[in-house]
């Protein structure tokens, strides 16, 4: 009985040691991954703020004003004026969708448009 217990506890010890070894490396890997991810997040944040700055720079009012002046021929943009305010009832109702005759069957259509009896 006793030798059996000895062997069993030795085996258990080895199994635990193996498990601890694996856990150790898994933890180290997880830490490495986390720090890589953190680095990536920091880099992305950095480039995000860079792009925000660039966006703000490209949208600065003086540049937009120059662009509006340059492209006046095609865009015709002017400063907002008081007269451009309107009431809701000044907006026209959307027109009902146009109902055109079905043109998929040409023979049929020709006959209907002529208003005559179908010769065929």
């Amino acid at each position, binding site marked *: 009985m006793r030798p059996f217990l000895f062997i069993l506890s030795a085996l258990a010890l080895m199994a635990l040691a193996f498990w601890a070894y694996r856990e150790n490396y898994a933890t180290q890997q997880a830490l490495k991954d986390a720090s890589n991810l953190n680095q990536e997040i920091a880099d992305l944040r950095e480039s995000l703020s*860079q792009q*925000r*700055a660039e966006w*703000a*720079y490209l949208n600065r*009012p003086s540049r937009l*004003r120059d662009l509006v002046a340059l492209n006046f021929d095609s865009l015709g943009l002017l400063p907002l004026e*008081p007269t451009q305010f309107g009431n809701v009832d000044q907006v026209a109702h959307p027109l009902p969708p146009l109902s055109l005759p079905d043109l998929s069957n040409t023979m049929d259509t020709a006959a209907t448009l002529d208003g005559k009896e179908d010769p065929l």
Partner: protein
Amino acid sequence: MIRTPLRPLARILSARDKGENPDHIERENIRLRAEDTRARAQSRAEGRLLLLGLAFFAAFIVVGGRMGMMAASEASEPRSAASGVEISGRRADITDRNGRILATNLSTYSLYAQPKQMVDPKHVAGELAKLFPEMKAEDLERRFTDGRSFLWLRKKLSPGQMQAVHDIGDPGLLFGPRDMRLYPNGNLAAHVLGGASFGAEGVHSAEVIGTAGVERALDSRLRDPALASTPLALSIDLTVQAAMTEVLDGGMRMMNAVGAAGVLMDVHTGEVIAMVSLPDFDPNDRPSPLLKGDPADSPLFNRAVQGVYELGSTFKIFAASQAMDLGLVNANTMVDANAPMRWGKFKIGEFEGHNYGPLLSVTDVIVKSSNVGTAHIALKIGGERQQAFFKSLGLLDPVPIELTEAPGAAPLIPKRWADIVTITTSYGHGMSDSPMHLAAAYAAIANGGVMLPPTLLKRDKIPQGTRVLSAATAKIAASMLRQVVTRGTASFGEVEGYEVGGKTGTADKVKRGGGYDKGKNINTFASMFPASDPQYVLVVTLDEASDNSSTKPRRTAGWTAVPVAAEVIRRTAPLLGLRPQIEIPDVSAVSARKQ
């Protein structure tokens, strides 16, 4: 343990045989036994003490060892702990009220040299001088070879310049990461933002500190690592600010002015929507302050806050509304306006020697801008009450706004408040205030009589404010200001649909040494719109403006500041989302035309 009996029979018997006292044996044994017990207790106690000592020793060793290790090892971030709120060493961004960026950071590099590691100082000096025009090859070579081991070369590098320096390929040239403050909108809102520069510098990083404006006034908030990821939202609206700057710039040129300032304020919250001072500067490349001469000539000078001027007739409405509030007069009370008025050795006259008298209603005193009429109203109020009213409107103290320049720009007030001071200050002479002061005070009239401290930060919660006028008086005052535009001195201020109300102010500039400069004016138009339910207050000030379109230069505010302010309102009111109101024409006017 085997206990020895106290009276062993053998020894007792033999002692009895010898005629000795057997009790001695018993006592001897008791003694021995007690000694034995003591010895055991002692050794046990000693053992325990030793153990305790060992435990303490071990604990001290552990603590000491840990301290030593911490002191000797390189610091590192805890890697396993989950990071919650983002903590950053960067300076927080500044945005406008709609989240558009006004100031942000850009990563860049600084350039420094370690001459001891340099391979070919002469070549490096030559190449650097070719790259950067401000460096001289001989200077650099001398500094590289005079035995120093470290020197800064440039605070900021563009990526292109950095590559060019890399291409020189000398191991003695090194780069340190830097955060650079960037103002993407250039000159826009330059006086609000101020600027930033480097504080303490190291190889790995450098402090970015604010040098003026909001950047300096709120430096600790912007540098707080816990708040670095939350941008600071200002009350400024970038679009409105841009439109106002454009109009003021045009107006300044057209009116031949040397400077212009404009403040647009939301009357219900006290938020400053736009604040312009011209000429302005680029905060990315802040000019150095003037070392001699008048600081007001520098573009760094913020006319809207630092420029304390005698603001002239714009002050008249304060006297009129206070007198109405106190019940001394009402809008139709006739007051003496017979010009010129004599007070002691002083003579108070009207603009260009007019006489609007002998009697004028209070409304007409404001509409015609009568100095004499205002003087009589002010005398009814009295100096003490007038001073208290000015104090409650904040006109006697520096304006409490979030700019470093603000506390230094205190109004100029006479030391002794004599009757003549009461008279002159009632029409805005003899005391100097900034356009920002005026805007805050007009906002108090416009919002129904509640004085709110002005702010440059977006307000989520509107402060209580202090009531300075009754709502009814404020309404009458606003209608008086409206009449100044419809039939008074500010007729150019009419903007269709926006019911502009306001008061002009023309004051001669105070000369450096004393006295007034007749040819140089400060022209102000303080306005509110729409007058029936004021939402915004606009103050426009032009420095030394004159309208030269006719034969004689016109220097009054009515000809200079008013048309510019009207254009500002025409441009900005739609941007602020104000609908133009359909104004019903006056019935009497219609019938008059029919005849």
